[in-house]
């Protein structure tokens, strides 16, 4: 029981990380109609900024994360103005390739700016842990779980209640109609990219202490987030986030109870088979194609 609880807690923590990355992917997908394969590398870049500031300045980590958020606003806007603004007339496949090109730029520019050596980023709350029911959880993990939940809830409230959220939902349902109704869709797009960048940075900072900060930091997170988007369906905002937690639980259970070598691969095979039998996700709606 203790082990199971331990696994569950660990899954909730990584679920928060996946959920943030998935939210970043989905908000960009819904407002820009493009699958952002660069989500992981954007988060990785943001994490590198936080880590570099932390190492060189010696300021407290929380302040460095705040600087990372500000930098994220800058990078997100830059991506939006330099690239995304000019992609409106490009086909879906072309947009996909553009995000792959952006991914290459982020992966290339990171070692140029921050060097090729792996960096270390400590936990936000360095010490202390709580134990109950035979499971241990560090304060940092607890913070990550609560922070993830809180951030997602704030995002959902913002999407449902605020004016900006309404604009995002309108753009997501039909961009042209939204434009005709006077919604500044360009601002919505800009906001989506900034949010994606900041969420990516948060996800990176949360996962960084468990490993080292390298260009591969977010590879598995990005894939997990995509898997969550598949299970949750690309059509809703909540689906992928809810699915993130299930993906985390599923993959941890597979790795622990089935095989620590093949668990991950089994998960990916399940995903592919799932796509075969249910191509639009659990919460997704089937879109009828016209000739």
């Amino acid at each position, binding site marked *: 029981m203790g082990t199971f609880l331990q696994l569950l807690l660990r899954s909730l923590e990584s679920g928060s990380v996946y959920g943030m990355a998935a939210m970043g992917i989905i908000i960009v997908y819904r407002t820009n109609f493009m699958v952002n394969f660069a989500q992981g590398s954007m988060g990785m870049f943001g994490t590198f900024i936080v880590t570099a500031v932390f190492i060189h300045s010696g300021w407290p980590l929380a302040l460095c994360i705040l600087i990372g958020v500000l930098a994220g606003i800058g990078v997100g806007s830059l991506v939006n103005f330099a690239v995304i603004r000019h992609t409106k007339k490009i086909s879906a496949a072309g947009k996909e390739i553009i995000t792959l*090109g952006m991914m*290459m730029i982020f992966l290339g520019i990171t070692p140029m700016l921050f060097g090729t050596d792996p960096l270390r980023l400590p936990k936000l709350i360095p010490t202390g842990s709580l134990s109950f029911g035979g499971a241990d959880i560090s304060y940092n993990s607890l913070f990550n779980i609560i922070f993830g939940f809180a951030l997602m809830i704030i995002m959902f409230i913002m999407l449902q209640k605020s004016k900006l959220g309404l604009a995002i939902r309108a753009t997501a349902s039909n961009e042209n109609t939204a434009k005709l109704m006077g919604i500044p869709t360009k601002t919505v797009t800009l906001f989506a990219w900034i949010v994606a960048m900041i969420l990516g940075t948060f996800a990176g900072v949360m996962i960084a202490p468990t490993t080292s900060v390298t260009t*591969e930091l977010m590879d598995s997170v990005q*894939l997990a987030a*995509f898997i969550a988007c598949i299970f949750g369906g690309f059509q809703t905002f909540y689906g992928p986030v809810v699915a993130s937690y299930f993906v985390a639980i599923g993959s941890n259970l597979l790795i622990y109870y089935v095989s620590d070598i093949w668990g991950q691969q089994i998960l990916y095979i399940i995903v*592919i088979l799932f*796509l075969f039998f249910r191509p639009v996700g659990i919460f997704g709606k089937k879109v009828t194609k*016209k*000739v």
Partner: protein
Amino acid sequence: MEKKRPAVKGFSNKQYIGFIIFGLCLCLIPVLVKMGVLKTSFLNIIGGSIIYTIAALGLNILLGYAGSSSLGTAGFMGLGAYISAYMSADLGLPWELSLIIATVIPTLIGILVGVLSLKMSGLYLGIATLCVAEIFRKTFSQFTQVTGGFAGKSASFPVLFGTIKLKQTGTFVLLIVFMVLAMMLTYNLVHGQLGRALHAIRSSETAAQAMGVSLRKYRLVAFALASGYGAMAGSLYVHFVRFVYPSTWNLLLSLNILAMIVIGGMRSIYGTFIGAIIVYAVPDLILKRIPVVGSYNGFAYVFSGVLVILVIMFSRGGIAGMISGLVSKRKARPAETAAAAGTDDSSGAGTE
């Protein structure tokens, strides 16, 4: 298909000669290296470009003609490389046999992925192939009995027919032979029934099906070709570089191969080679000489990434499309038709 052959025979013969002359020109590189005009490292760089050209030709059929994106190219290349290394080094099979096995097994897996892909569209397919590549990559590092894990695996230069031991130069020529063969095969395939069917599928799957084009058959063929070319390239890689690590076959390599066909020109055979040279050789040969920026490792990726974005935004035909546009001096046509026509024009332009 057989009936239509004679009509295009004369033309394709001319194309064949073009490919062969192109291959012979590349064969001059080892000669120039021997004479001391070029550095030995040049051989490695161009050899690498040739290997990636073969893999990219396969992806070009899948992405350029069939319109299905795949992010799994690196995985299939790696699979081919590991199977080939295992067969020839551990089991002691002759090089030819290991090459065939290393091509056939991944092709079968590619067909399987193709079957699964039939129900998926666009973005889901990209993610599914990403999962496939990740399965391979994880397996390469963890299935240590065969792959040697993180320590890597070594192989030797090919031994032809059990007697002729090749050195680096010989293997380089062998690579050229394989590339020319791959180019001929690709040319033949895409200018026949397959090419036309794939064009139809790319424009509209539903319309193509309504006209009697079997989506299942041609998607599977495209997937089989993409994975088969990739695996063959991987097998050639391991016998040319003689060493293989699991970390080589990551997403970045798949992205690089994608960049090659986007930059060089989708649906263009010579364009694929140009793209491979730009993405793989230019960073090594030219960009590294640029002061300050050039000394950084990541600059090559930034360079290709920026090029990819620019090509998608401004010229869908890639460099081959631009060349053919200059040659034919035709004024702005819709991007799609220019790209589709780009194959013939650019292949003519490339040989000059």
